[in-house]
């Protein structure tokens, strides 16, 4: 089914999207409508234009591919499925996502991967092709965040305060991260080849979506950040 989004508000658009029996839906002329495909399962939604805030919130298995930019809160609390953005995304992408994958060709704003989780066999993955703003992986509790720095000019691969409050999961930054300050509660070091082998499948998938050579991308220094379990966040309490 093809839907011309320009004339429709988000409620009508989502209603049509939910009601159709078609598995594949193409939206044209999308102009920032919010909550697209929220909570859906089993659909493939192709979006031409700009996807608004909370694209694929609570996504439960659908695949969303956006040929343009997406705004804030991409994949908020997503449980399963895939979101592919052929452009840049706004802030707080993948907030508390528990499963599924997000691929972004360009840059991400503040707080990407915030409070990302993992549960049983669900390990969420977020791959950002460009660079990210401040507070990347804040409160990260699980999953894998990969930032490639393939575009975005001379800016550092991540802005200020990455991994604040991180207490689970892994974060790979394709950079030696010289000059980037990490909090005391995380370890950061250059990833070993076997650790990079672990993310090869995700890089290959990224290249399948956006082009590029996985070998060339992986032939670089990656910094691996993990929480320091020996130095957890605890405020010393005394029972009163």
């Amino acid at each position, binding site marked *: 089914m093809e839907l011309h989004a320009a004339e429709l508000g988000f409620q009508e658009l989502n209603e049509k999207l939910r009601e159709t029996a078609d598995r594949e839906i193409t939206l044209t002329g999308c102009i920032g409508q919010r909550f697209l495909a929220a909570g859906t399962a089993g659909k493939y939604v192709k979006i031409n234009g700009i996807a608004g805030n909370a694209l694929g919130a609570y996504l439960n298995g659908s695949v969303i591919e956006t040929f343009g930019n997406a705004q804030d809160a991409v994949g908020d609390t997503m449980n399963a499925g895939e979101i592919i953005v052929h452009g840049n995304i706004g802030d707080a992408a993948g907030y508390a996502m528990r499963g599924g994958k997000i691929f972004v060709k360009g840059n991400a704003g503040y707080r990407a991967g915030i*409070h990302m989780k993992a549960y049983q066999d669900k390990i969420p993955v977020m791959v950002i092709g460009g660079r990210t703003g401040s507070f990347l992986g804040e409160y990260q*509790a699980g999953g894998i965040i990969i930032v490639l720095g393939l575009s975005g000019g001379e800016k550092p691969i991540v802005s200020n305060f990455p991994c604040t409050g991180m207490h689970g999961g892994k974060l790979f930054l394709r950079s030696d991260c010289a000059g980037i300050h990490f909090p005391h509660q995380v370890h950061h070091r250059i990833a070993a080849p076997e650790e990079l082998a672990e993310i090869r499948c995700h890089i290959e998938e990224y290249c399948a979506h956006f082009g590029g050579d996985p070998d060339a991308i992986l032939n670089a220094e990656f910094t691996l950040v993990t929480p320091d379990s020996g130095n957890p*966040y605890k405020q010393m309490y005394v029972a009163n």
Partner: protein
Amino acid sequence: MNFYPEFEVVRNDSRCIRCRVCERQCANEVHWYDADGKVMLSDESKCVNCQRCVTLCPTRALKIVKSDCRLRENANYSDQTIKEIYRQAETGGVLLSSMGNPNPLPVYWDKILINASQVTNPPIDPLREPMETRVFLGKKPEHITRNADGTLNTQLAPQLTLSMPVMFSAMSYGSISYNAHASLARAASALGICYNTGEGGLHEDFYKYGKNTIVQVASGRFGVHKDYLEAGAAIEIKMGQGAKPGIGGHLPGTKAVGDVAKTRMIPEGSDAISPAPHHDIYSIEDLRQLVYSLKEATEYRLPVIVKVAAVHNIAAIASGIARSGADIIAIDGFRGGTGAAPTRIRDNDGIPIEPALAAVDKRLRDEGIRNNVSIVCGGSVRSASDVVKAIALGADACYIATAACLAMGCHLCRSCHTGKCNWGIATQRPDLVKRLNPDIGSQRLINLMDAWRHEIKELMGGMGINSIEALRGNRLMLRGVGLTEKELEILGIAHAGE
């Protein structure tokens, strides 16, 4: 520094039959049997005065009394204040407490009195005449509208239907036990009211009580997924909690075990951190976005509640929430309970529910948006008369949690944070959890609510009012005693005698 224990165990040795029930029942390990002397001994320093041993002692040989061994009297530096300083000087720790603020701050409910009919407006006898206690929470239409064919448009925004204006407020599985959740869920179901999951997710066994469940979405988003959102009768966004406004929660990894971790959908042993803010909410517009994302995900079938702590500018905050698309606002006053909160925050942050409720109701009426939302108030609603006063001050319904815990056996020892609740409520220790029998727990909750419903009807009948609808915001039915003009002005009530 060692100081003399706060409580003393007084054992009447002539009554004690050495059955050792006290020893077996005390998770704090206060009591033990000395085989040589054939006597029961105790270490009072571990006692929290939960009254478990007292209650179960078959010969009433035990009582717990407050020690009269006190520091030198000082009206400024109380024993409590001094001991808190000792504790912090010793550990460098942040003081941690449980349950609601116990300090002698004003309880406005106790300074408000209810009207009754005499002569000119006859009272109603609820035993003979029908009384309506059912309420519907949610957005109400501003105007009557008609369809094209002239018939009435009866499409309403989704409503939460309650048989009486009381619900059990949020307590997560993790902060309280499986059996406590089972008791609340079953009682809510039998009563036709709702209980609330809190932010710990919904155990798979309790999906069947969904029609009587409010599912909560908090900053940590624990256990939040499509099935969970659709399982309940309403979705509550937790922005704040009366006992600890402005701070989040932290279930340590050591407590995130077994079903608790599974229900939160996190790996076992992983810290469950609920950050203080929602990372995507910095404005009413952002709140609107979360409200609508939840509505979209559940196809507009469920009302969305936004819960906030009662704080200084609560009326302006509520006005914002009423414009955010939320269907119900829940306001939690500063005496509300908690499973653990820093003492300083619990005892000093936020404001009482009574002026907060009155201010919110007035503000929304003044702005002509009162019908946009229903108001639920919590934070120490202790009795049917508190409920009646709350409704007359403008609430649509009340949330209770401490009273519900008391019904299940809680003795308000305020030690929930230790995880050793001897009554099987605020604990995950299997040997303690099984002490709370859900058959009994739910029946006691049902009894309490049945009793309150009768009392609410009697109080309403006395006023000559036969439905909750006619009581809501009916401040003429209230009078203040011993309140200042400012307090009366904020509560919107006259003084007794006026």
